């Protein structure tokens, strides 16, 4: 039984056929990477899985109620004029959690000292970390992270990787998207490569690299992708 699955899912926006029969499955307790160039339909897949979009055809399954899901999406929905703490308290109140949990979540992402900072004044990296703190506050069963480290400096990104692994070790199932192949290689237990509306390869990232001898040409999965798509990454 998969925690998340999609079977032959199609989705078009007008004439733009974005997903042309996507099939994937995510096991409980793994970090699953959805890889593909920008515009390949990664966010669309997440939106379908969290039931914010409906697929044109095919089956989807997400083994969690919406309040058992943690989200980190491109548009983060933070309340810009409120402080870091007040943003968290909205969700603490919604979930009926003790204050200690909120403080714990903020400290986990390194925002323990920024509680009073107004969200508008946060750096991009701090903002991402706040969204992550909000996403994990209620210890969700499933975490959807859409490009969690885009536009972050490598150091901040590494901090986020560590957190994501920690969350997996605590039992969450994590689906993340990225167009950063190197990131995926190091972080994910399993990946799928999305291209042309279909999954063109899947498995353990290191195994995939070996299979295509990619570690000898271009670094890691990027080389696989270039081989598979004839070099057309964009």
């Amino acid at each position: 039984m998969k925690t998340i699955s999609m079977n032959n899912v199609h989705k078009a926006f007008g004439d733009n056929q974005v997903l042309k029969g996507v099939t994937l499955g995510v096991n409980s307790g793994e970090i699953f990477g959805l890889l593909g160039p920008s515009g390949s339909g990664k966010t669309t897949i997440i939106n379908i899985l969290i039931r914010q979009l409906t697929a044109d055809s095919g089956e989807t399954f997400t083994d969690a109620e919406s309040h058992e899901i943690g989200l980190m999406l491109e548009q983060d929905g933070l309340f810009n004029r409120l402080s870091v703490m007040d943003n968290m308290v909205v969700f603490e109140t919604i979930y009926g959690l003790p204050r200690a949990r909120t403080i714990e979540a903020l400290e986990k992402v390194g925002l323990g000292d920024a509680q009073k900072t107004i969200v508008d004044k946060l750096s991009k990296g701090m903002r991402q970390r706040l969204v992550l703190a909000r996403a994990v506050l209620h210890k969700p069963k499933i975490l959807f992270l859409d490009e969690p480290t885009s536009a972050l400096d490598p150091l901040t990104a590494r901090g986020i990787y560590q957190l994501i692994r920690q969350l997996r070790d605590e039992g969450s199932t994590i689906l993340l998207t990225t167009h950063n192949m190197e990131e995926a290689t190091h972080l994910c237990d399993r990946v799928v490569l999305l291209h042309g509306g279909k999954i063109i390869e899947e498995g353990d990232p290191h195994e995939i690299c070996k299979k295509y001898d990619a570690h000898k040409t271009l670094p890691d999965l990027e080389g696989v992708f270039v081989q598979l798509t004839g070099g057309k990454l964009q």
Partner: protein
Amino acid sequence: MRHFKAIFRKQFLDLFKNIELLMNFIIYPFIAWLMGTLASPNFDGVPPDIAEMLVAGMPNMVLMMATMFAGMGLIPNIASVIAEDIEKKSLRVLSMAGVKPISYLLGVGGVTFLISVFSTFAFGLIADLASARELLIFVAAMLSAVVASIFLGAMIGILARGQQAASGLTMPAAVVLGFGPMLAQFNGTVRTLMTPFYTQQLNAIVDYFVGGPAAAPLWQSFAIIWGNVLVLGILFAVVYRKKALAKRA
């Protein structure tokens, strides 16, 4: 209840950080107060006869500001709050966390209503109405109008494609409902046209206090205001169900 509390708190805190919104609650009572001060018979440089005229017309002018508040202040306020939460995807995050649209709307509308209560009493006190009974009638009419405006503003906020569009959509409604009653004072045709609208009737109740030309029986004005509340409430419910706020999130 937890969900309502969370939204109410968020909205309450946000109000004091959102200068534009806050101004809408403060500016109308402030202008009313300013007019009251200007109309003071002791005001330097104002000839006594003009001062007397100003003083006589004062409650009317002050309460006109209350009408404008109900129309031009509130409708854009609530519309922009909702449209912003939709546009920034905050509402999606809330609804994914399990917040039902009704809790969200009660929280957001509740803050608007609460602040409107303060504004209403401010108007009542500045207008220096003749009796406690008049104050009570004014407060009742005003708060009914506030509810109507909240329904209308919320409806626009849900329908609009983003905050920018919401402010575009509220403009005509706010002008008709806020300015209409003012124009109606000088023009009989406008007065007739404005009769079915709640802000006009709010103004008519004010006229009733000062014995103005448009004075209609009180019960009639209240009936029309509550009719407006009912119609807007039903329209709101229809939009709310059709647009399924959760889906728009």
